[in-house]
């Protein structure tokens, strides 16, 4: 568990998988391969980096574990940047991004992506918590095995 934390895997995986999700499924749907790769990595890598930073901040005690508000805020701040990187990459390589050119300006693009980043943050938290909790929860369940009439407590985390 400690090694897992040191490698900052939960945040990285969550971010990367999210980005790859977009590209990976595009392949199923038949988009050109080169576009799929750039779209997936263009979003996946920045989100993975932000995921690593997130874990580092959490380990340092800057972000409390499992709380919604700070993670949502983190999503609002980082998601637009990741999207912008993706759009700029696609524009540089294929001459056309996905929605950047349709927006009235970069600012309105960033504001909209920021609002969507709120949703991203919540989703990130759900999956991230699952990855981290998995082993912790199992250990707890073993320990909390019922003995006779003793009540189980719903949660262990303090």
């Amino acid at each position: 568990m400690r090694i897992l934390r040191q490698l900052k895997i939960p945040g990285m995986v969550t971010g990367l998988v999210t980005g790859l999700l977009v590209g990976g499924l595009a392949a199923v749907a038949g988009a050109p391969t080169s576009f799929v790769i750039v779209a997936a990595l263009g979003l996946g890598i920045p989100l993975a980096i932000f995921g690593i930073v997130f874990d580092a901040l959490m380990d340092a005690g800057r972000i409390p574990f499992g709380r919604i508000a700070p993670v949502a805020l983190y999503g609002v701040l980082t998601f637009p940047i990741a999207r912008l990187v993706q759009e700029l990459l696609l524009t540089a390589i294929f001459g056309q991004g996905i929605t950047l050119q349709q927006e009235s300006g970069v600012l309105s693009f960033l504001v909209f992506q920021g609002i969507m980043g709120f949703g991203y943050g919540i989703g990130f938290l759900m999956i991230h918590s699952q990855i981290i909790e998995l082993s912790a929860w199992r250990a707890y369940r073993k320990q909390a095995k019922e003995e006779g009439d003793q009540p189980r407590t719903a949660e262990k985390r303090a």
Partner: protein
Amino acid sequence: MDTSRGGAPRGTTEEAQEERVWHAGREDPMPIKELPEPPASLHILGPGMLLAALGVGLGETYLWPRLVILFGPEIRWLFFIGVTLQGVVMLEMARYATATGESIFFGAARLWRPIMWLFFAIAVLVYIWPGHVALGAQAFESLTGISWYVFGVIGLLLIGLIISFSTIVYNVVEAILSTLIGILVIGSTIIAALVGNLGFVWATITGLFAFGYFPQEALSGPQAAALFPLIVGAIAFAGPSGMQQMWYTLWLRDKGAGMGSYIPRIKGLTHMDEEESMPSRGFMFDTEDPENMRRWKGWRRWVHFDAWVLFWGITMLTTIIYTVLAQSALQIDPGVREAILADDEGATLNGMAAAFAQAGGAVIGGLFFVFISVIGWKMTFGIFDAFSRGQADMTYYFIRPVQRLGMNRLYFAFLWFLILFGIAMLFVTGEEDGPAAILDILSVLSTFAMGAYCLLLLGTNNLLLPKKIRPNILINILLAFAALFYLGMLAYSYFRFGVIL
């Protein structure tokens, strides 16, 4: 009726040892025990998340986008009301379950057993149809070309296998549903981020507060008889529909919330030999004891977080995202609206997917179908678990001859019946009279069940619980309003248009 109801728990002396009990309704009295300590911190994983995961389903992603495409984002205020009322209902479901460790079905039996059997029957009528998995499978077929029967059957069998081989069923259900809802929230956010714009978000938010708006064409005119019931059905699908709220009490129990700590949990088929003996009724805590009341306040805080932050917050968030998506679809392809009006039931899904494909390339169109497939499966997974829990709970406690089988075996009997029946139904209904038609039938009975459980909660929480932990007058008014809201809409639809569908 026992006269001690309404007062403090009454003590009765048995032999030398004093066993204190709380007399609630017609069934066995509840022994008084210590209320366990509430969790020290609030956490994102909990039964509220489960309910949100189950609640955010085809209502949010299919029925409501269909309404937004037809009537504009202003129709969303009805959703806002619906989900907020559901938040109140959830608090009250939790009140009964955490105070007694009993399901709300047991509470219904305490009032009068036929009420409980009514819900038993409704559950069978509403939930044995594999509507959700079928719709998900249809979306999967649109994406891959593989026959939806294949996906439907594999999906159903997978549910049975996962649950059968788990250690503690609740933990597996919680982990799977929480992960899938996380993926859905992230995925749909990304789709919205790739096709939407700022204007749509604003229209959505103002739409949520457009109180009183009702489209004229749904009230009068040639299409009113078709459109009004559509709105009623969608309201029933705002948040957790049908009996999902009632099942929440069973999840709370297995999570070990409040007095649920004293009740054993459902275990997987491979761990059934470890089954613990099930008490024949729930428990009550001493509401005159300050320490127990302090803990009760802690549990209420936990439940409030569950209801408002996890359930309400996540449901509203997904709604905003899907309203943005629906508006994008309409902007990109205005033909979607006509297709829906022409009564093409698959038009919403196909229209939205096609519109997104046009906007963000095949990437987005494909992703959308994948999400509908995942939602369909996730709903079926959650509903099958919950249905089996509920029916097993009622059967175990109130059909004495089968009690010796144990709660676990009954649970798996119901689960595998659902799966096998579901597979059979997939082949019987066929595609023409398929998924969407089943879903429409569900929504009528769902609406009825929702109105009925609001009335039930008024009874259980005011008549069966000690005075100190009963709901206040405001909550009672809201529950009564909710009952009127659901049953009234249904009745209006029937008397005004002659149809309840």
